[in-house]
């Protein structure tokens, strides 16, 4: 599903975020990317989602080389992913419902069908009673769950989360991790970057340990 072959990322200015990374993640796998902050976890996720392009090597997503995608093809590529950002990137001038509906609108799904899907996603993360609320009125854990609802509403085959439990206390963090496990159960490929090794607990999950931009085993 996702294949890195000797991938490097050199930022302008000379900072080498990733060097010589090779790995493969199969369809339906649950993978964790761990490492200290600044180890290159976020960069790695951005390379998968074609937000950044590698400066060396190739990144294949579903047999497509992300570096070779045309500008017009990138949006369609991104729709395969459900992205959960470190800083949530919620729209604070729109209510919960509209935040979750955004990916559907982008896919051209509106009206009754969109409403049904949005409520299903909100139900999954337990925010069904808050659909009219503005994100700013939600707690940190609720905002995180809202971000997850937005990521899964268009039923992507790959879910990518950057520090989803970053600022949450243990109860909330467990709740969020349980959500990811539930999605994993139904066959979604999940890649989670986290520095919190305690979050990686149950099951035989795949772990990619990054150290200063390189994979350490």
């Amino acid at each position, binding site marked *: 599903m996702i294949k890195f072959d000797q991938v490097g990322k050199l930022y302008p200015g000379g900072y080498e975020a990733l060097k010589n990374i090779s790995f493969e993640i199969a369809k339906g796998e649950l993978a964790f990317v761990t490492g200290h902050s600044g180890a290159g976890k976020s960069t790695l996720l951005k390379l998968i989602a074609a937000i950044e392009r590698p400066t060396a090597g190739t990144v294949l997503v579903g047999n497509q080389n992300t570096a070779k995608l045309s500008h017009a093809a990138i949006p369609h590529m991104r729709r395969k*992913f459900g992205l959960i*950002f470190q800083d949530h990137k919620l729209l604070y001038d729109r209510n919960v419902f509209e935040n979750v509906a955004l990916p559907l609108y982008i896919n051209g799904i509106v009206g009754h069908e969109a409403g049904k899907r949005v409520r299903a996603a909100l139900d999954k993360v337990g925010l069904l009673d808050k659909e009219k609320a503005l994100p700013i009125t939600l707690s940190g854990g609720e905002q995180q769950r809202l971000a997850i609802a937005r990521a899964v509403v268009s039923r992507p085959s790959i879910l990518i989360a950057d520090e989803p439990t970053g600022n949450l206390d243990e109860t909330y963090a467990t709740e969020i991790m349980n959500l990811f496990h539930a999605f994993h159960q139904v066959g979604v490929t999940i890649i989670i970057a986290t520095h919190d090794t305690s979050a990686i607990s149950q099951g035989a999950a795949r772990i990619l340990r990054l150290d200063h931009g390189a994979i350490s085993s």
Partner: protein
Amino acid sequence: MKLWLRQHHQAFQLVIARMWCTRLTTLMMLGVLGVTLSLPAGLYVVLDNLGTLAGSIESDPQISLFLALDANTEVIKDIDKRLHGHHDIKDYRYVSRDAAWNELQHNAGLEDLAGGLEKNPLPDAYIVHAANNDPATVEQLRQELQQWPGVEHAQLDAAWVKRLYSLMQIGRQAVLVLASLLGFALLAIIGNTIRLQILTQREEIEVSQLIGATDAFIRRPFLYAGVLHGVGGGLAAWLILYGALSAFNLSIDELARLYASDFRLHMLNAQACAVLILAAALLGWLGSFWAVSRYLTSIKSSR
């Protein structure tokens, strides 16, 4: 097709909702655009009215051929024959001195003048229309007719109408120049408005792009906003013109009554209105397309 329609409907609704949220600012903006557009449109209306006024007067240049007072029937017959055979003459009409005298006595406002005269001072005359209305040819024809025996005087009428027409031609060019300049201003105003809107929605654009929005999706609501601003500005210009003309007509009515005329300023016709609004909509579209493209290019290159 259905998807395409849905996406447009969606973008349109979003824009209407946004405009409603900022309705005061939007109204101010439409006012500014309306004033900008009403200037060339107003000048056009003035010229159009002048054209109607001039058009109600005989606009074909005609030559009045006044015969000598002692011209007898022989001479008149001769002139008639020469006029008949002439290539440059479209038609001509004989006005006998008695007919002219009769007309003068019954013409509004001139009865007093005619009443003061004891006998008919008028000569026999021909009214001649040239086949070609080109001023130079007509003048040449006049000079030729002047030379004929029995002709006392050949006068070219309606020369001032020609002059008015060439003045109006200059006026029309002025409308074009003014319209292009203010069209550019409109482009800049709408482009800038959209640019500000983009800045307030920067986060939304960023998030949308991250989750797979195409450039077209990002652009669509802004294009609608641009077009709606253009159409709104066009309608505002129409309202401004309508209001101004109605106010003028109140005074013109009074003036026209004094001159026993039923002249009134008329509004832009339907076709000109359509042109005004469509042009404004097109400029709005262009302005916002330009603004969004510039923004999309700038974020693409910063990545």
